[in-house]
């Protein structure tokens, strides 16, 4: 099948396209030149002048409608996405369908409304208002360049949506691993409201083409980039405007002894969080700390979670592994199996056929990142309050902690995790569905986008 993996304002014309094959899918993309990109940036900036005159609330209603239509599995865009995304993302078809449902679930009119509340005084976008000890006016960037990375569906979307609500135009450079969903989404927005569609451009080029990136970075007032620490560092060096980098992160979980009275249920939710997106996301847990002294011990919990991992592997099958990825999982398993054979307190629970899932019980509580692809470690702690110290050297990389404890303990535990550098604490089973208003990496979405001018009279 052939799919257009790009979106351009309708006013841009006269470009040639080329194709790129990923498995059975042929992706059509424009042949991008610095001239074309300059033209696109000009169109986006022009179109945004019309968009900024519209109310955020009105744009929110339209975007919410777009996501409602995406929930309909017979919708044209949804059907195209379900057919093509397994090839580009290497997630199984069931995972793609489930991932799209999850994505839509969070993007509602209410969520957009809450997000808009975050600006505080929306009038500040239209003129100077009293704010603090002076008059202040907020400016939304005319053009934001987004550099996306990785195969997680909808990565970068919160920033794009927030920018659109503020009346900014978005130039979106998609990732090689997932060049398609943003393009389909932008086209679906244009279908619902052509004027908003004119403020979106979705393009793919192979990262590092500096002649293109210098245009994309110079025209933007803000660059938001995703990627490895190395990529972020490298991009930041080439950007002269404001820059927000989202590097790779690790997440994990905590399970209190009291909730182990319903260990099966907790294990099921922990297995779901781990299996989702084949554990590739920054919200995917690498390990779970399980408190001793509950109805079942940490090791028994590991065994229960293994059963649950197997169940999720049937319900949301893992995508195919490359030989390198499979070999890395083998190596990870081999390392732990050998430790167990050598008499260390380590146990390996894993799918017997193939590498669908791997669960390792390791009595050593040191925080160890997993090799991913549904490989998770269970580590015992005598008390959850010990976890803060174990996280110390990971502080710059911590993202979310999934927590299953009795309500009386959540305050203390959340306080400790926040101190340790965690920016999101959520129930286990909800780790992969952050609310739109999440302070990702400890920052506020709208405040990062806006630029302020103060006036003292």
């Amino acid at each position, binding site marked *: 099948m052939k799919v257009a993996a790009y979106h351009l304002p309708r006013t841009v014309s006269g470009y040639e396209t080329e194709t790129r094959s990923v498995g059975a899918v042929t992706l059509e993309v424009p042949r991008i030149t610095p001239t074309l990109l300059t033209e696109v940036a000009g169109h986006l900036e022009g179109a945004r002048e019309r968009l900024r005159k519209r109310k955020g609330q009105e744009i929110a209603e339209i975007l919410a409608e777009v996501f409602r239509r995406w929930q309909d599995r017979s919708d044209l865009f949804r059907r195209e996405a379900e057919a093509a995304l397994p090839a580009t993302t290497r997630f199984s078809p069931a995972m793609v369908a489930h991932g799209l449902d999850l994505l839509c679930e969070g993007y509602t009119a209410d969520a957009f409304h809450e997000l808009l509340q975050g600006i505080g005084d929306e009038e500040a976008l239209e003129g100077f208002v009293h704010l603090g000890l002076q008059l202040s006016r907020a400016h939304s960037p005319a053009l934001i360049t987004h550099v996306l990375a990785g195969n997680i569906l909808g990565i970068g979307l919160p920033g794009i949506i927030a920018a659109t609500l503020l009346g900014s135009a978005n130039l979106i450079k998609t990732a090689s691993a997932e060049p398609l969903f943003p393009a389909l989404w932008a086209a679906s927005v244009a279908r619902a409201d052509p004027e908003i569609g004119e403020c979106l451009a979705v393009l793919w080029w192979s990262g590092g083409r500096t002649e293109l990136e210098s245009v994309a970075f110079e025209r933007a007032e803000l660059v938001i980039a995703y990627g490895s620490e190395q990529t972020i560092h490298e991009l930041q060096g080439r950007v002269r405007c404001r820059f927000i980098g989202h590097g790779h*992160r690790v997440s994990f979980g905590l399970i209190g002894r009291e909730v182990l009275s319903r260990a099966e249920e907790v294990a099921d939710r922990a297995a779901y969080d781990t299996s989702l997106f084949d554990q590739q996301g920054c919200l995917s847990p690498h390990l779970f700390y399980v408190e001793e002294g509950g109805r079942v011990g940490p090791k028994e919990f590991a065994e229960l979670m293994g059963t649950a991992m197997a169940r999720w592997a049937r319900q949301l099958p893992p995508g195919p592994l490359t*030989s390198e990825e499979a070999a890395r999982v083998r190596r990870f398993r081999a*390392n732990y199996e050998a430790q167990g*054979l050598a008499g260390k307190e380590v146990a390996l629970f894993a799918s017997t056929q*193939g590498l669908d899932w791997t669960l390792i019980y390791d009595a050593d509580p040191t925080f160890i990142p997993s090799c991913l692809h549904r490989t998770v470690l269970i580590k015992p702690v005598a008390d959850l309050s010990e976890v803060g110290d174990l996280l110390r050297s990971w502080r710059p990389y911590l993202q979310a902690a999934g927590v299953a404890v009795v309500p009386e303990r959540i305050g203390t535990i959340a306080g400790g995790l926040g101190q340790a550098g965690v920016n999101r604490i959520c129930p286990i089973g909800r780790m992969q569905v952050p609310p739109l208003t999440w302070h990702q990496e400890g920052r506020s979405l709208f405040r990062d986008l806006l630029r302020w001018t103060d006036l003292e009279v």
Partner: protein
Amino acid sequence: MREPLIERVLEFIRGTTDKAFEGLALEVFAFQYQRNPAYRRFCDRRGVTPDTIVRWDDIPALPTAAFKFLDPTCAPPEHVFLTSGTSQGGDRRGQHGFPWLDVYHASLLKSFAAYLLPDGLRPRMLILAPSPDLSPTSSLSHMLGVVRETYGGEGSAHFVGETGMDLTRLIRALREAESRQDRVCLLGSSFAFVHFLDVCLQKGWTFQLPEGSRLMDTGGFKGRSRELSRDELLRLYEKILGIPEVLCINEYGMTEMGSQFYDNPLKNRWLGHSGVRFKEVPPWVRTRILDPTTLEEVPDGQVGLLTHYDLANCGSVLAIETEDLGYRVAEGFEVIGRVPGAEARGCSLTAEELERRQ
């Protein structure tokens, strides 16, 4: 007095017996299963005992990672070698003890002679690696030491000392070889060669070593030199040393194994055979290429994990699952290399990414 089985393995390696590989491999497996409690537990977990299998390829292959945590030996070792300790499992180094060094030596000498010295030459050996005295736990140093002692001609020497490579002495030896028309054999790790070639490139030095001079390199670059493709390296060997491709032999070996594999072109040329370059498998070894997901043998030409069944490992574990990817070529294979670290497909941090940063 050691087991008669070990004598029979030795005879098999030396080629003085016509016993079949399979029978001997199964006997060695039974011996190791009995002698080695850690390996026995590994086999039991897989439901395999000497009584349940009748084929050599059903012998459970122990991952090389296990050498970092278990003692794989079946008898008190005469000598213990350590791996260089790269990535995964932190800086923990694997260890491999050899209870019977004569079996190890029989294997390494026979292969080396077949693939580097098929013409019976006893060349002056110029070794770009530390001597066994300097680096007693390195299996490569040990092997090159034994090779030098057995086959090295007059003036053979090591050129890597405590303070690194002795370039002055090496250059002198190479110039001598040129002027006396004395054929040499250069031996060493790939990164040592790259280091040397880079100096030559920088200084504009070239050599025209006498015809029949040859070279053996081994191992990856391990971040100790720039990385070159095989083709690029072969081109430089010819350009700077004057040794043609056919006489440049790559060896593939590991601390966890008593046997090694060599490129075949030099041997083929001597025997008058034609054919593609690949790593040949000695008669006392079998190599399978397994799909890392299923551990089933891959179709010919497809990439998989190299898994070796090596009778020279009779003192430890015969069946070894490596972390090296490769593919079958004719009756042998080609190595792609150690499974590299990688970034996640998504936005999660990986251990490898973090290690690279540190």
